[in-house]
């Protein structure tokens, strides 16, 4: 908002150039054989998941550990509507319904959780949500088909390109929405709530409404990703859909990039994927150990993320967010 117009123009050109590159890249190479195209597809997915977490946690200060619940809901809504014959292959309507399903659950669960629980307790409550839904899906009888899961016939698969472009589109739309929110009065309210709830409320901000808004928007885009994932893997079961990876990886990426920043999470996604791939290539056996060590090092020594080296802002925001507060003790 306060940036000089020239700087803003440069940023916009960089963003447009990047999007342009990602749009033409799969058209220039043999997309089906290219591993990089698959990695980019994964990255776009994680950009959306990361910003979905970032809007509630980084901007509004409400750290959710239940993003995998929304991802799983997205998966199951798509799989079940497919099985029922109401949705087709890569059906935009089914995808929107999956996002909406996650958003509705976010509102229903968010109302009591966000009204009654703060900080660590809210985080634990959301973690519980994911587990409850996983167990519910496991015992869902013929509706969710239990541990066996739901299969979508995979013979409709033709190319990775539609997945790639849909994931790119979702992530660009997510980024655009976040940009507009962050630079509007809504963004101001979210940051105020993160900084001091009591003061925010005393200054006329209806805090519950804005917390729910941030939480629900994050759930919606996460549900969209879940839906696309269902179409990609063609088989939805509880361990895949409600996997903790869908919440842990985005959190790590946001922290690595810079929590509560706009560009940071994108940098975090690409650097973490690059780092993990590199480690995997070099030491296939030791990969999990190195990845784990990497995570610990980042949260301890890089709490402001990569962004802080670009902008010079070191506000230790991560150490003020509730479940990460204990990290500050180590400094």
């Amino acid at each position, binding site marked *: 908002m306060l940036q000089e117009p020239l700087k803003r123009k440069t940023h916009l050109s960089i963003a447009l150039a990047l999007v342009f590159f990602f749009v033409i890249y799969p058209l220039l190479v043999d997309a089906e054989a290219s591993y990089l195209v698959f990695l980019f597809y994964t990255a776009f997915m994680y950009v959306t998941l990361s910003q979905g977490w970032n809007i509630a946690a980084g901007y509004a200060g409400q750290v959710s550990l239940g993003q995998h619940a929304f991802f799983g809901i997205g998966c199951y809504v798509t799989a079940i509507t497919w099985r029922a014959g109401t949705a087709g292959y890569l059906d935009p309507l089914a995808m929107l319904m999956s996002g909406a399903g996650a958003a509705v659950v976010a509102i229903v669960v968010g109302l009591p959780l966000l009204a009654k629980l703060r900080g660590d307790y809210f985080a634990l409550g959301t973690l519980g949500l994911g587990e409850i839904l996983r167990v519910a899906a496991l015992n869902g009888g013929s509706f969710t088909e239990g541990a066996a899961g739901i299969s979508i016939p995979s013979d409709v698969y033709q190319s990775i390109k539609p997945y790639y472009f849909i994931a790119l589109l979702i992530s660009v739309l997510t980024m655009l929405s976040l940009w507009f929110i962050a630079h509007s*009065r809504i963004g*101001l309210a979210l940051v*105020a709530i993160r*900084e*001091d709830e009591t*003061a*925010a409320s*005393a*200054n*006329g901000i209806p805090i519950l409404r804005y917390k729910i808004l941030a939480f629900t928007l994050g759930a919606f885009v996460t549900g969209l990703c879940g839906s696309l994932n269902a179409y990609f893997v063609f088989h939805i079961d509880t361990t895949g859909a409600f996997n903790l990876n869908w919440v842990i990886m985005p959190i790590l990426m946001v922290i690595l990039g810079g929590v509560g920043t706009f560009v940071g999470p994108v940098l975090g996604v690409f650097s973490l994927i690059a780092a993990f791939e590199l480690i995997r290539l070099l030491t296939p056996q030791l990969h999990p150990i190195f990845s784990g060590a990497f995570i610990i090092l980042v949260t301890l020594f890089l709490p402001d993320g990569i962004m802080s080296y670009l902008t010079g802002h070191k506000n230790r925001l991560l150490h003020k967010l509730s479940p990460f507060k204990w990290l500050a003790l180590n400094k």
Partner: protein
Amino acid sequence: MKNNGKDVVLRLEKITKSFGGLMALNGVDLSVEQGQIVGLIGPNGAGKTTLFNVVTSLYKPDKGDVYLAGKKITGKPSHQLCHLGISRTFQLVKTFLSLTAFKNVLIGAIYGHGMRGRQAREEALEALRLVGLADKKEVVTAHMTLSDRRLLEVARALAAKPLITLVDEPMAGLNPSEIINMLKVIKRARNERNVAILWVEHKVDAIFRLCDRVAVLDYGRKIAEGKPEEIAQNKKVIEAYLGKPPP
């Protein structure tokens, strides 16, 4: 509602609040008129903060009601109170640390009063000017001194265009010259905005210099109310602070 020709902005009626066996407030009446500065003093544990928290709905009174401009507002959520015309500052300063001074005050204008766009920005600048922070508007609050943050809270409270502002020990932690500045700011706020101010303070001399009226609480009861010079002579008040003289 009129009282001596002036509008009564805030009226507390027989406020009673107890915590378990402890009667923190016992039938306290109080009213504040438009443009009036009312001081609220009393020894530690007298119930000043409890009274504040009842007005700002952090506590619900066991008995009694709070009226703003004649309308009952007891127990309304605090963001609604702000919309209705009660803004406040905090004893332990609560500014939005990662935001600039300007954006802090902008929040008061946008969410406190429902202003938009240019009007909100102008109001925020005006409030910053009133407290003397106009040249620090782009400073991030985390880098401001305690005294500036206290002034910023006053600006933020005023940007909401309230009928009444509750200020909770605005002098706490300030040095003598900062206290003099704060007194000037409170006076200017009242004179320029005609806003009513209910002011809790431990520094009794500051209260006596500026207030139109002073109410004294002791053990949850209002033991005296009147002009500062009357209160300074009041036997009950002196006893509450210093104890009874030996017979």
